[in-house]
């Protein structure tokens, strides 16, 4: 009886041992900002060496989440473990050494205008109280890593946006952190510079094995470098998984909407003519990923279920080396038995199929 009560009283999440591979673990973190819940019970883990991308619309709670990880913001309830240590109730003084284990890159770079590039990069070491000779050696090393050695003596004002962010990254790495937080690091940059900054982050992740947690509102960023993605909406993680799987099979409305820009969509001129009931052609949406996308799916379909069909729109993309595709297919007529056979075949081959509707006349 007593044992039973004791077992019930123990919070099951508390007794889960923190794996040595978890750099970050959040357990039911809540934080209110005024009347709204910025974080409404967020739990997630970031494993050593991975790149986790957190995506959401503005106001979804991304910034609050990332700021809870280095104690710039304090959760109202829940637990934040960094390298196995609970930090959400630490005082400012105890947080300071911890923050040196966490590098942070900002959307607006936040470089000090009064310091040269090398002094900006060396600032975390200065804060740590290391000797000046060490600062300069480390700054030189990092500036070489980010490809800005010749700018060591320049002031940030003379740099382009992309160069400033490279300095920001070098600075974040100066104290050899265990975790790098990236707060919309590419949102203020043009697409080409964004690609080069993301490539740099990916390279650092691969070369140094550095764990990276990044927040963004752009799926393109997630697709380029993240291993796993967590989708946040209204302070909750609504979806989480390997990037290619989430791309292939988005479960929530918000994920589909965020994917809208980079996944094939039915062209609007066809979408506007879709109707239920009967029509000259039936439009199908076929989603394939992984194994299903590696097979000669369409030629197998025409061999097994005779009858014409045509490809209207779509294609196969590669995310994390995995094929992920969406095809829009039009089948003449609206013969229910034929359609059922087509759908059954596709389902059998691991493709998700949806009848979007019918269109009258030709498209």
């Amino acid at each position, binding site marked *: 009886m007593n044992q039973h009560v004791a077992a019930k009283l123990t919070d099951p999440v508390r007794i889960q041992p923190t794996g040595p591979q978890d750099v970050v673990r959040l357990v039911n973190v809540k934080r209110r900002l005024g009347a709204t819940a910025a974080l409404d019970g967020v739990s997630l883990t970031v494993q050593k060496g991975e790149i986790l991308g957190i995506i959401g619309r503005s106001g979804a709670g991304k910034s609050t989440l990332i700021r809870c990880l280095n104690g710039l913001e304090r959760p109202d309830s829940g637990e934040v473990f960094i390298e196995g240590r609970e930090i959400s109730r630490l005082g400012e003084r105890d947080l300071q050494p911890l923050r*040196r284990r966490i590098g942070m890159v900002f959307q607006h770079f936040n470089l000090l*205008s009064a310091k040269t590039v090398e002094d900006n990069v060396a600032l975390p070491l200065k804060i740590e109280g290391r000797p000046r000779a060490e600062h300069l050696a480390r700054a030189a090393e990092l500036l070489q890593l980010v490809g800005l050695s010749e700018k060591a003596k320049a002031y940030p004002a003379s740099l382009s946006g992309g160069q400033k962010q490279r300095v920001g990254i070098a*600075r974040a790495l100066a104290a050899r952190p265990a975790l790098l937080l990236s707060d919309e690091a590419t949102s203020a940059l043009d697409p080409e510079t964004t690609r080069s900054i993301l490539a740099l982050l990916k390279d650092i992740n691969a070369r140094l094995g550095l764990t990276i947690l990044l927040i963004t509102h752009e799926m393109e960023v997630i697709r380029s470098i993240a291993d796993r993605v967590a989708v946040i909406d209204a302070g909750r993680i609504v979806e989480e998984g390997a990037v290619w799987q989430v791309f292939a099979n988005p479960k929530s409305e918000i994920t589909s909407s965020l994917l809208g820009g980079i996944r094939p969509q039915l062209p609007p001129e066809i979408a506007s003519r879709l109707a239920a009931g009967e029509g000259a052609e039936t439009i199908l949406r076929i989603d394939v990923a992984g194994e299903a996308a590696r097979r000669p799916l369409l030629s197998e379909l025409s061999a097994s279920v005779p009858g014409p069909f045509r490809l209207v729109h779509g294609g196969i993309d590669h995310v994390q080396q995995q094929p992920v595709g969406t095809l829009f297919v039009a089948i003449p007529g609206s013969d229910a038995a034929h359609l059922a056979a087509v759908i059954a075949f596709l389902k059998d081959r691991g493709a998700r199929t949806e009848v979007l509707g019918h269109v009258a006349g030709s498209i």
Partner: protein
Amino acid sequence: MSPVLFELLLRSIWETVLMTGASGLISLVFGLPLGLALVATDRGGIAESLWVNRSLAAIINGFRSVPFIILLVALIPVTRLIVGTSIGTWAAIVPLSIAATPYYARIAEVSLREVDHGLIEAARAMGGNRWTIIREVLVPEALPGIVAGFTVTLVTLVGASAMAGAIGAGGLGDLAIRYGYQRFETSVMVAVVIVLIVLVCGIQWIGDRLVARLDHRG
């Protein structure tokens, strides 16, 4: 101008420079920390304490609202306590400093407040404490404004020191009143005005040069 008057002019220049320089230095030493305290203790500051903030602001406003000529007289007991006398150049430095310190504190406060909050946050994210933020972020980033504000304070002090003649402090303003105005020595008046213009322009020029060298904001 007679050699006697010329010697008087030289002495007055020295007295003005001494009063301006000494009280300027004192206002910098006390005004800058006061400005920092105003920014740090304000809402969202690095050492938020609204009670301290409001009290400091009230004291500063109190001193700033008293006209200098009244402050000069009202502070006589304080001056006597600090300098030992209430008359002369050194005696004038006390009220000048007390007037300039809250003035400069407000000017420094404006520059410090303009420092991008993101920079403070970056320093915190690096594990910096309050002292680091003041030393590495607030003061260096606000330095062009701090120096420009100090230049403004010095020029204001040159003007204010003219009134110090009221307590026998001498200086250029006193010379102009007593010889140029009351004794109709127009040449003295003209010489004093020229010297004051050169002095003010010189201070401003040096200040502007310094700001240009310190400002890397692009």
